[in-house]
């Protein structure tokens, strides 16, 4: 599963969010992601991709920013 797939599945499960609404331009806050849920999402990413996220990570605003950030970290930690 890729990053956006993980976000879609998580938000469908947790908020009943329509996967089609989870597009790169969508604001995470508009989708219903609060600070606690953001922590859960990051936890899911760590678990699923076997990466370790720094504790001072800047919180992304949109789905696209989150995907970009995760893709970069996954690539970095694999190399």
């Amino acid at each position, binding site marked *: 599963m890729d990053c956006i797939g993980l976000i879609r599945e998580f938000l469908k*499960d*947790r*908020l*009943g969010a329509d996967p089609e609404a989870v597009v790169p331009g969508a604001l995470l806050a508009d989708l219903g992601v609060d600070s*606690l849920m953001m*922590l*859960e999402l990051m*936890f899911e990413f760590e678990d699923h991709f076997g990466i370790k996220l720094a504790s001072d990570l800047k919180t992304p605003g949109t789905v696209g920013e989150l995907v970009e950030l995760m893709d970069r970290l996954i690539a970095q930690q694999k190399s």
Partner: protein
Amino acid sequence: MNRRRVAITGLGLVSPYGGDPADFFQRLCAGESAVRHLLTDDAPRPLSMPFVSCPDFDPDTALGKPLASMMDRFAQLGMAAAFAAWDDAGLARHEEGNTRDRWGCAWGTALGGTLAYEKGYRELWQKGRERLSPLAVVLGMNNAANAHISIQLGLGGVSMSHTVACASSSIAIGEAFRRVRSGEATIMVTGGSDVPQAYGVARAWEALRVLAPGDADSAPRACRPFSADRRGLVLGEGGAALILEDWDHAVARGAHIHGEIVGYGSSCDHSHLVKPDAAGQVRALRDTLDDAGLDSSDIDYVNAHGTATAEGDPVEIAALKTVFGDAAGRLAVSATKSMHGHLLGAAGAIEAIATVLALREQHLPPTAHLTELDPACAGVDHVTVARQQPLRAALSNSFAFGGSNAVLAFRAVAS
């Protein structure tokens, strides 16, 4: 002091029988036990004991998956019971503005989110994981149930949890009652929920040698309060909620009033952690009557704490005989734990509902499986078969480990 009358306008529970409070009460009156044999797949040795579960309760269906996934099972049971009581009271789930700033929640739970913490330990110690979900704290905290209830119902007043072992929810109800009576709160959501099937918790109770034995065949009859052959208590999970409301407020909005809560007394034996003391129980009973402005002759029924332990049952009867004196022999007493089990922090709440329904229906639920009375428990009118009878007022007892005692007094309302 200006005292407000306090109406009970909503009752709700997650019933082990699967139905609503009316169904729950009918089954109690039929003497129908909800106790079954519990067999888990826990390592190193499965739990195997008589237990009361709520098998029909599906949190995702009852609460919706997004809300259910934010809660441990104790909070799920509590939230579902609170929603049911709220709907029963005819109150809207959502309200605009700040009209509920003086409405609150007082919740009882002995164990809180123990099950959530135990799940965490399993992840760490059995599955070798090194970290836990960021939700672990908010799932496990003891005030999770009341926090969710206040958020979901928009209650802006006090939101608190009470942890007093087996008296938790009687104390929660009593404290909620005082807030409404004093005028501090217009409406309080109160009650309790607990999930004693946590592996470490059930094993700990086993080690105390107070759990009744039983297999698949004998489990329904395992809990026999006041009986000569009683073997101990039966643990159970569940959630039960009551809506306490300022009487004038309830009348003004045309609410249906199930009954009136009129008194609350509490005490501590201050003598022993697990050995109950009749003198402490007597003080709680007398405090309750004083608080309610009732005489012992006004009481027509007592829902006993009656857990079916060897030590506890005779002490409770001795306390009742002291308070009711020569009239004790005519005092109707029953222990409904014989059928719904011991819900620990939710016990007081589910028994408060049984007591309120007894007054409303003018019908006494029995102590089930009481065929041979222990002579040490004699001296009151043990109700062994349900019966119709005029009932004016009733008490519900909760006597906890630690010596904490709580008694609630209720009065019937003319329909």
